[in-house]
């Protein structure tokens, strides 16, 4: 299996084998972060640019840590203080970064499809760190990596994705990745948070969290993205917690070793109770650790592909 893509834009565009190559490579990279000297020279002399049009701490820092552990140089561009404020277009910004001879742009953008557009316009690698409601491939990859580490496989698992499906790129990337690897995905949310046509992805749909929890091997709980757009339909917070919040009482009827995931940041007492977030089934902090290995694998593979095509 050889990686040939200069970009990582979404799991929709990857084959099962390509997803598995990233996961296998990430497994090898995980060891690097356990060393006393947490650094390997694989991307020495390469420059990675973090270009974030949306606020993000955990994803941006995770990518920065990953790039630095590979010995790449990292530059952070916060768009609030850059020429973007003066009206520069995305493509112009990208071409300027390319002219600086950077090798990889890691981009978070509020518009769906922004990463695809930038990747088409540039010769250097583009890694999508989340675009609008479209995809967040590295988050899904680290969710799947963590799940595989915990349960030993993906094929045949039943995985529930609960909550704000409508506004969630994490949900979309997870649906693509999990179904390609042979898992059954069940989406569970109040109807107002289930976008029309989402069943076309092959996922099942339910509005009853208690029924869903009884049969799944893992539950990925999404964050309510209240900031997404004002005036949009959102359930009342307490009401949502009562009907969909993951609590110890609800989990008591689930499989004993059910894996509870959350992409963070958690709204405690809205999506899940504190007891569950900090409980024995929660792998939320392991997801953060695994995110570094997965992002190291992605940065390594896209830069290898570009070298191969030179």
């Amino acid at each position, binding site marked *: 299996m*050889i*990686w040939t893509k200069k970009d990582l834009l979404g799991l929709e565009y990857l084959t099962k084998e390509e997803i598995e190559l990233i996961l296998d*490579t990430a*497994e*090898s*990279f995980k*060891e*690097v972060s356990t*060393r*006393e*000297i947490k*650094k*390997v*020279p*694989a991307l020495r002399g390469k420059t990675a640019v973090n270009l974030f049009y949306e606020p993000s701490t955990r994803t941006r820092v995770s990518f920065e840590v990953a790039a630095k552990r*590979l010995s790449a140089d990292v530059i952070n561009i916060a768009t609030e203080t850059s020429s973007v404020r003066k009206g520069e277009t995305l493509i112009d910004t990208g071409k300027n970064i390319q002219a600086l001879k950077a090798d990889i742009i890691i981009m978070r953008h509020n518009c769906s499809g922004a990463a695809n557009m930038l990747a088409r316009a540039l010769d250097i690698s583009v890694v999508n760190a989340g675009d609008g409601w479209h995809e967040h491939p590295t988050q899904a990859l680290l969710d799947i990596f963590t799940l595989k580490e915990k349960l030993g496989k993906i094929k045949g698992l039943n995985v529930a994705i609960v909550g704000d499906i409508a506004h969630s790129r994490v949900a979309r990337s997870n649906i693509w990745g999990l179904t390609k690897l042979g898992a059954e995905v069940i989406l569970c949310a109040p109807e107002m948070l289930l976008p029309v046509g989402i069943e076309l992805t092959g996922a099942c749909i339910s509005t009853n969290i208690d029924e869903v929890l009884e049969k799944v091997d893992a539950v990925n709980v999404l964050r309510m993205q209240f900031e997404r757009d004002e005036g949009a339909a959102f359930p009342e917070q307490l009401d949502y917690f009562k009907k969909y919040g993951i609590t110890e009482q609800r989990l008591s009827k689930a499989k004993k070793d059910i894996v509870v995931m959350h992409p963070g940041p958690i709204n405690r007492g809205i999506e899940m109770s504190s007891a569950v977030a900090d409980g024995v089934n929660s792998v939320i902090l392991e997801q953060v650790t695994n995110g570094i290995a997965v992002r190291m*694998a992605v940065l*390594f593979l896209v830069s*290898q*592909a570009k*070298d*191969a095509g030179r």
Partner: protein
Amino acid sequence: MKEKVKILDQEGISRAIMRISHEIIERNKGASGLCIIGIRNRGVYIAERIADCIKKIEGADVLTGALDITLYRDDLALASGQPLVRKTEIDFDINDKNLVLVDDVLYTGRTIRAALDALIDFGSPRSIQLAVLVDRGHRELPIRADFVGKNIPTSNKESVEVRLREFDISDEVLIVEKE
């Protein structure tokens, strides 16, 4: 690739590994403080066989580890085929230990250069020695092996293929003609 000559068979390989093991014990005056680290892939199996031999001879367990050098290659950016990154497994402290680095074939010396860099990132060993099953010459760096199973003079048009039963079907060392 065309098969040319069989240089070592199963018995030849196990005799060479046994002799290397004796030499390692002699040089290090026993097995204490000794760790054997194999370079992926086939070096790992040779390292384990050496550790088994040392256990038979000295009755002492020797720590073994596996090293993947992909991320330390100097030709990473130039490599034609895409290298697969595999796991490094060194689950012990290498500080102040006598390490024996093990590989199947010693050729240009670039793999060993990368392995030395990788090991130094794990700590500061007392010494690093090098054991190889086959030394085929053509060094491009100032590196030599301390323990050699067999010296095989080769031409650059040939390649040396080590097969080990843990990884391949049989135990043998062949010289093959590159096409």
